[in-house]
C-alpha cells in the first residue's frame, strides 16, 4: 500500500516558457520572493509582450526537442501594450487548430494569463502544466520523424 503512494523515478519534461515582462515574468518573480515552490521544468524566456511570440518559434521549440511550450501574458484588458495579448490569442487559437492536425496534444502548448500579482497562480499553472506534460510522456519530435522514415 505504501508502495502505491511512493513515486518512482519520473520523466522530467523540458518546457520552453515565454513570459511577458510586465505581468507574467513579474508574477513569476513574485512567486520567487514569496518562496512558493513549483517544478523546475519550465525555463523562461523574457519577452516584452506575449505578442512577440511568433507561432513559428513554438514550432521551432517543439521541433528542436521541447516536450511542451508555455506562453503567458497579461490578462485581457491589462496588456502593457494595449492588446498585444489579444494578438497572441488570435495566433495561438489558429496554431492550436493546426497542432491538432499534427497530432500534438493540446496540453503540450498552453497560453495562460498571469498578472504581476498572481505569483501563487503562476506556480499553480506551472505545476499543472508540468504534470500534464509529464503524464503525456516525451514528445521527442526528431525521433518521431525518423521513426517513420
Amino acid at each position, binding site marked *: 500500500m505504501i508502495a502505491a503512494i511512493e513515486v518512482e523515478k519520473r520523466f522530467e519534461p*523540458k518546457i*520552453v516558457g515565454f513570459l511577458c515582462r*510586465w*505581468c507574467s*515574468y*513579474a508574477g*513569476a*518573480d513574485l*512567486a*520567487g*520572493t514569496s*518562496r*512558493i*515552490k*513549483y*517544478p*523546475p521544468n519550465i*525555463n*523562461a*524566456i*523574457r*519577452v*516584452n*509582450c506575449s*505578442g*512577440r*511570440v*511568433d*507561432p*513559428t*518559434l513554438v514550432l*521551432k*521549440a517543439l521541433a*528542436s*526537442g*521541447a516536450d511542451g511550450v508555455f506562453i503567458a501574458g497579461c490578462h485581457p*484588458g*491589462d*496588456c*502593457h*501594450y*494595449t*492588446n*498585444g495579448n489579444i*494578438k*497572441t490569442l488570435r*495566433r495561438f487559437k489558429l496554431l492550436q487548430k493546426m497542432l491538432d492536425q499534427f497530432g500534438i496534444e493540446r496540453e503540450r502548448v498552453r497560453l495562460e494569463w498571469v*498578472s*504581476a*500579482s*498572481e505569483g501563487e497562480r503562476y*506556480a499553480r499553472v506551472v505545476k499543472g502544466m508540468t504534470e500534464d506534460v509529464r503524464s503525456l510522456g516525451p514528445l521527442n519530435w526528431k525521433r518521431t520523424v525518423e521513426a517513420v522514415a
Partner: protein
Amino acid sequence: MKRVGVFVCHCGLNIAGNVNIKEVVDKAGKQQDVVFAIDHKYLCSEPGQALIKDSIRQHNLDAIVVAACSPAMHEPTFKTIAQLSGLNRYNCEIANIREQSSWVHDDVGEATAKAHITVRQSIRKVRLNEPLQPITVPVTRKVLVIGGGIAGIRAALDVANGGYQVYLVEKSGTIGGRMAQLSETFPTLDCSTCILGPLMVEVYRHPNIKLLRLSKVEDVKGYIGNFKVRVRQEPAYVDEAKCNACGECAKACPAQVPNEFDFGLTWRKAIYTPFAQAVPPAYVLDAKNCLGLLPQACGECKKACDKFGTSCMDLDAWPRIHDLEVGAIIASTGYELYDATKLTEYGYGIFPDVMTSLEFERMLSASGPTTGEIKRPSDGQTPREIVFIQCAGQREPETALPYCSKICCMYTARHAMMFRHKVPDGQAYVFYMDIRAGGKGYEEFVKRCQEEKGLLYLRGRVAKVYEENGKLIVKGVDTLSGKTVQINADLVVLAVGMIPSSESHELASKLKASLDANGFFSEAHPKLRPLESPTAGIFLAGAGQSPKDIPETVAQASGAASKVLGLLSSPTLEREPTVAQVVGELCSGCGICLSLCPYDALSLNAEKIAEVSEALCEGCGTCIASCPSGALTLRNLTDEQMVAMIEAIVE
C-alpha cells in the same frame, strides 16, 4: 566572435543556499565564447561591481552575463557597471537564478540544473547582442495629477512650486477628499480642515495649477515624457470665476438630496456646495438630481442667481473635453470604505445605531450633521454606552478583506477619546485584535486613551450584534480573561477597512499601470521604487497604493513629486533602443504589420517598404511576430536570438 565573461552571484545564501554555485560557474566556463567565469558573494556590492569592472579590463571582455537576481532588480546597476568598464551597456545580460531558481525549487540539484540552463540561455543571447545607443526623445514638461485629496494636493503643489505646469483632475465638485471629511487628526488632535483648508486655497490660487473639477480621465496615450491624455469635464452649470457662493440658488432649489459628504446623515439641495471650505468656492448643480435640465423643468436656481446673485449660471452648459499633453502622471486616487452591509454579524444597515467610523467622524465634526454632538441616529439620544469594533471585516481572508488598513487602531483611539470628552459620563469599549501603533507619538497616544477613565480596551473579536429592547447587544470574547462578554450598547462604531477607489481599476487599465491582488496600485519595487508604478512615467501617491495615514500620504506625495521634478529636470529623455527595425531588402511591403502597431509607429515609404518610427515604437514586438518575410526584427531580441535561447533550453 565575442569574448564573454560570466559572473555568478551568491546573494549571500539566497542563491548559494540552494544552488551549487561552483557547478554553475564551471559549466558556464565551458560554453562557447566564454573566456572567463567567476562567482562572488554579493555582485551588487561595491567589491562585487569592482570585480566585474576589473575582470572586463583584464580579460578584455566585450560581453558579460550576470547570473543573479531578477533583471527587475539590478539590471540597470549591472548595465551601468558594464558601461563604466568600457562595454556597450547592451552587451550585458542578466540570468535570473534567484527568483526563478534558488527560491522556488526545493532540490539543490534541480535548482542548480535550471540555473545552469538559464545562464546558458543568456550566454547564447549575449553572443548575438549588438551594441546600441539609447534613443533621445523630448519631454513635455507638464504633469497630470489624478485625484484631489491630500495626496493629490500635496503632489500638485510640490510640482507646481518646482516651476512646472500641473493639471489637477478631481471627479467631485471640490478638492479635499477624505481628509476634508475628518474632524480631528491623530495623534495631535489637530482640526483636519484647519490644516487642509489653506492648502486647498493655495492650489486654487497657484498660477501653475489648473484645477479640473467634475472631471474624469477618459483616455491615455503615449509613453513616459510624452503622454497624451483626454479628460472629460462635466459642467457645473455655474461659472466658478463669477460665483461668490451667496447661496441664493440653493435657497431657491426645491430638490432635496441626501448629502454624500455626510453619508446621507444630512440633506443638501440639487445645487449645492459640498462644504464651507470647498475649493473652488463655487456652487455645483448636480444634474442627476436636478428636477430637469433637458428640457428645463424648473430653473429656479438660475432665476434666483440672476435676481439676487451674480448671474453666473448657464443651464445650457455642455461637458468639455480637455486634450492634455504631459510628461508624467501622478495617480492619487485614494480610498473608499469596504461595504459594511456585507458584515452581517454586525447588522450594519439593519440597526440604525450601528455606524461606520467615517459616519461617526462626520458626527464628531463641528460642521457635521449634529454640529459635533454625539447622538444616536435612531432617536437622537446621547449614547452612554458605546462600542468600537476594530478590524471590522479586516484581516479576514475567508469572508472579507485579508489585509490590515493600518490606521484604524489610531483613529479608533481618537474616536474613543473624543467620545469621552463629549460625553463625560459615558462608557466606551474598544474590541481589538492587537494594537498596531507604529509611528511617531502613536503608541503614546494609544496608551493615553487606554488609560482614560471610562474607556475599556477588550482584546478579542465581536461574534454578533443584535437589537433587544432598544439596546444593541454586543456579544464578544475577551481573550485576556478568556471569558465571553456581552455589552448592552447604545451605539456601535465599526472600523471598516479601506479599499481602493472604485474607479481605480478602470483608470489602471487606461494608464496600463498594474494593480495588486487587492486592487491597489502596484509599485515598481516595494523597497527600491515604492513611489512609481512599473509603467514608466506613472507615479503613485496616497491610499490608492496601499492603506496609509496622512503623514505617510503626504510624504509619499512629496516623494512622488520630487521623482517627477527629477524626470522633468532635463528637456530630453533617453529611451530603450531595443525597438523594432526593418531590414529594407527583405521587406516586401505586404503591410501585414501596419494595422498591428498600437502606437502607429509603422508606415510604408514611397518604395513600399515598411519603416519604424523609433520615437513611437515601444518594442512590444507584435509586428515582428506577424512579419511573414522576417524583415522586421527586434533589436537584441531577434528571431535568431530567440532560436538560440530555445535551443539552449532544450539541448
